[in-house]
């Protein structure tokens, strides 16, 4: 499953480069920001500015960078997500085809939810622990704004 995604995204990235659209953005608009860990890099795209400004004032500024919450752990999945998002967002950015109020995708939402659970294992244990068979409670339902309001 994961491998398939990598393949798909790599293929997409290659196609994008071939088209010259994503690729151009990737270089000129600093799309490669996706590959580094510095939150300021995300803010290279001005539409990430609100989130960046919010993050700077958030409780997590000292605890987590954008990537800590928005990419899955592990090298391959991490870069797969980055490549996938990097391509999709570069493409969107270049064509301008994205909504004004950006929304996290359902897939990326689960990535983020997993990130919370990874850092806060102790608490997760208490919240989900005794409820052996019960479904998880979504952290984001109550804490959606911890990274950036």
């Amino acid at each position, binding site marked *: 499953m994961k491998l398939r995604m990598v393949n798909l995204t790599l293929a997409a990235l290659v196609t994008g480069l071939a088209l010259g659209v994503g690729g151009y953005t990737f270089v000129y608009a600093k799309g490669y920001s996706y590959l580094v860990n510095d939150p300021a890099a995300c803010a290279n795209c001005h539409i990430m500015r609100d989130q960046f400004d919010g993050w700077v004032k958030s409780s997590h500024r000292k605890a987590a960078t954008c990537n800590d919450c928005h990419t899955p752990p592990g090298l391959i999945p991490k870069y797969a997500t980055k490549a996938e998002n990097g391509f999709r967002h570069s493409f969107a950015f270049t064509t301008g085809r994205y909504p004004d109020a950006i929304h996290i995708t359902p897939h990326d939402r689960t990535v983020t939810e997993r990130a919370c659970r990874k850092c806060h294992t102790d608490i997760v244990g208490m919240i989900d*622990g*005794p409820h052996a068979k019960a*479904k998880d409670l*979504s952290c984001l339902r109550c*804490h959606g704004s911890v990274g950036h*309001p």
Partner: protein
Amino acid sequence: NIMERKQEARNPFYRVVELTETTEDPAIWGKNFPLQYDDYRRTVDQVRTRYGGSEAMPRTPTLADPRSRVAQSKLEEDPRLKTMWAGYAFAKDFREERGHAYMLDDQTYTERQQVVKQPGTCLHCHASVYGPYRKQGEGDLLKGFEKMNQMPFAEARQLVTHPVACIDCHDPTTMQLRVTRPGFIEGMKALKAADGVKDYDVNATATRQEMRSYVCGQCHVEYYFKGTEKRLTYPWHKGLKVENILAYYDEVKGADGKPFKDWTHAESAAPALKAQHPEFELWSQGIHARSGVACADCHMPYKRVGAHKISDHHVRSPLLNVNRACQTCHKWPEEELKARVETIQDRTHRMRNLAMNALMDLIKDIKTAKTAGKADADLAPAQDFQRKAQFYLDFVEAENSTGFHAPQEAVRILGESIDFSRQGQVALSKVK
């Protein structure tokens, strides 16, 4: 110290004792879960908010009623309630509700018990009945329920010991939430059937998030005792809105073959209905329910205790706990959040007063017409308006959030109540 906390955190619960389906006493559960138990016991606290919480009124214990503290009387706060309920037990004694710790005593000793012979059904929501039901039913919950419903209250009362306890909301082995109340199980089945879902089984189907409201919906709902078996029934067969519930009561017939009534109004002879604590029903019409916010989110918010993060089992008014109950979702200052609630409540309360005045006027007019010897048939339309008006009004009056659980809906209901009362007066005035 940090080391210790990390330890605690990793293995947050020590299974000191084995809990089973027959472990009723919360103190035993408390050995495994001391933090939850400590909070659970704090529901004895009495603190008043503008419209909620409760006030501890000292009283001299008697043999018949050993309570040394009760909550304030609502009848004294607003004597119009006595007129609304004339001829019904509620006109005798009706108090602000208080914490869970008191539920069994308050039910046992309310003066309403002196006026009417109540059935065992009552205990469904005022005691830990899961054990007793199973015992009486020889392992079959439903059978025990049916059996205890039909006992006189005093007899059934002997079979229970605790107010709502851990076992009523939790599975003793997994600690998962569960619904143990037949009233709710059957009520949800009827509700879902109306939506075309057959044989809905709440314990098998509901999500964890839903369960965080359903465990409360076991009791915080409108109800009536159906038929001679006094079967506890939640009137949700046509839906959860006030008009759906009234339509249901209009449709089911009482012993007299006429639309079901709780009692005949003493002053007007109207076939009256009493609404009771429809928190679950009103909440379901509000923006919070629609946003997936559960009862437990506000009334049992998470709290930190050392390295633990637990659900606050000190169930109470969220206005006494705004920081945890509201501020994770709403980043407004505490005072501002309180003011928002109170703005909503003040508006609801104002409308409730107008609706109450309208109802008083109608009752007075019917009474006058009756005294003047008007024919029953001439009074009937006005009496039906009274039935409607007072059920609508009571739906908000008896609901305990003073409108907060669904602000616009609460005021909509009160507006319609006013319309019914005043139309009743007009109908009467057209009688020659």
